[in-house]
């Protein structure tokens, strides 16, 4: 189980997470949603210990990630399979070597065994026979899928995806959803998925957490969250520009119909880098 206890994180003056607490249940798919720039990626980085909280604790299976000595942290991280938002493939290695990297580091499998698993995983993300290609030769969506294959190659206990389908066409995106469901049913692993895709959230999530303005404003089972009477959630789920979440206020104002509220209420994301 993964637990956030009163986690607070800021970069300089920018408060990204403000007193976030939650328990991400084991063996379930938890989707983290929220507008761009609210700290979803930071949330994930806190979970795997790449970013340290200013205060509060992140606890994974009883280990306090934020205060673990280095070598223990590396041990705990072996439980994780992580897909970063922009893939982060090793650009000096081919796709096959990238996917094989965790296996070579942490197992004693033979080369034949490794290449069998690698080709399996690449096929399951829709990229068969691409072992020899270099990351620089791939399209954005292909990079994402190759990184996805690398993240799941060890069949980890906890799978963390930062926007797995954001660069993908709808058909591939749906097949990634199915891959997640299939893996979750087969291995009973815990999924934490950041997504902007409302449809897929409703399809695969067991739990949903919504981040907004540094707070985890809602966290709970899917049905509960879907029926919650909260303006922010409702706006998000209905994909409207009008509402408490204001991305680019001036333009929105022009387009606003009567009855919209809360202009200037939200954070101006465009003013940040």
């Amino acid at each position, binding site marked *: 189980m993964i637990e956030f206890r009163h986690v607070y994180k800021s970069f300089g003056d920018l408060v990204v997470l403000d007193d976030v607490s939650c328990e991400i249940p084991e063996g379930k798919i938890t989707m983290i949603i929220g507008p761009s720039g609210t700290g979803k990626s930071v949330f994930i*980085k806190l979970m*795997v*210990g*790449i970013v340290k909280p200013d205060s509060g604790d992140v606890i994974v299976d009883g280990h306090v990630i934020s205060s673990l000595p*280095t*070598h223990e942290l*590396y*041990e705990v*991280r*072996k439980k*994780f399979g*992580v897909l*970063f938002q*922009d893939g*982060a*493939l*090793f*650009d000096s290695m081919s796709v096959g070597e990238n996917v094989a*990297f*965790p296996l070579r*580091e*942490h197992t004693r499998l033979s080369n034949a065994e490794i290449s069998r698993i690698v080709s399996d995983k690449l096929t399951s993300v829709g990229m068969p026979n691409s072992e020899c290609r270099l990351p620089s030769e791939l399209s954005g969506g292909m990079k994402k899928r190759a990184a996805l294959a*690398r993240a799941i190659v060890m069949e980890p206990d906890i799978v963390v995806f930062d926007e797995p389908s954001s660069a993908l066409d709808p058909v591939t995106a749906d097949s990634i959803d199915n891959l997640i469901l299939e893996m979750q049913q087969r291995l009973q692993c815990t999924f934490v998925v950041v997504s902007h895709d409302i449809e897929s959230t409703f399809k695969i999530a067991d739990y949903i957490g919504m981040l907004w303005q540094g707070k985890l404003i809602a966290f709970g089972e899917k049905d509960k969250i879907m029926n919650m009477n909260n303006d922010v959630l409702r706006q998000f789920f209905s994909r409207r520009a009008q509402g408490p979440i204001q991305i680019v206020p001036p333009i929105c104002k022009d387009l606003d119909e009567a009855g919209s509220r809360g202009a200037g209420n939200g954070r101006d994301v465009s003013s940040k880098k």
Partner: protein
Amino acid sequence: MEVVNVQVLGLFGYLFAEVGRYAYFVAETFRNLFYKKFYFLNLIDEMNTIGSRSLLVLAPVSVFVGMNLCVEGFIFFKKFGAQNLVGMFVAVANIRELSPLIAGLITGAKAGTQMAARIATMRITQQVDAMEVIGVNPYAYMIIPRVIGAILVMPFLVVVAYFVSTLSAYLVAVYQLGLNGDAFMNLVFANITMQDMYKGMIKGAVFGGIIATVSCYSGYTASGGARGVGAATNLAVVRMSTAVVFFNIFLTEWMFM
């Protein structure tokens, strides 16, 4: 960010903080030497890269350094009618000072900048984070092989620089300046000992350590996109060439005084 620091703390404070962070990085590198895994293949790979990259530039540069040294020595000693002693000058100046320094600066310019740019790119594109999350220690995987590789390869680069420059000095002395070749060589051998050779190699090893740690540090702490990679590479060159020349004084004082 750095500019703000400079204003708040003053240049001295900034330098002090930077040296502190570097020291922490070096300490962390040493601590991870005893991390359970040592990446021997990466070490071999790095030694190969550092050696072959630097050698291609170092060898021709050493030819010119040797020629120059010989001509300068000749002009100077000729004032006293002692131009035959030029071999002595070449031998001492070369093994003690010039060869280690040239080898250091060239290795820094070739291999060091490559380390800084490479690691900075990996940092900025989150490849370092990805490695950590996969459970692979980036110090063990990519920093330590580079640092040890540079420490092991540099002494040999010094020796190469030494032989190449002495040979070129010899050729200039004999074929341009018309000196006696045997006398030149006798003076070279009479004025250096194996000790001098070892000390030159020790200098090389120390420079190798400085170059690799400074380059890796500059890359590892890079931030901010393509501009960050450029800044890291630039800082690496400035820092390591200053550090190499600076520590050269202490090594000379310590070993040859």
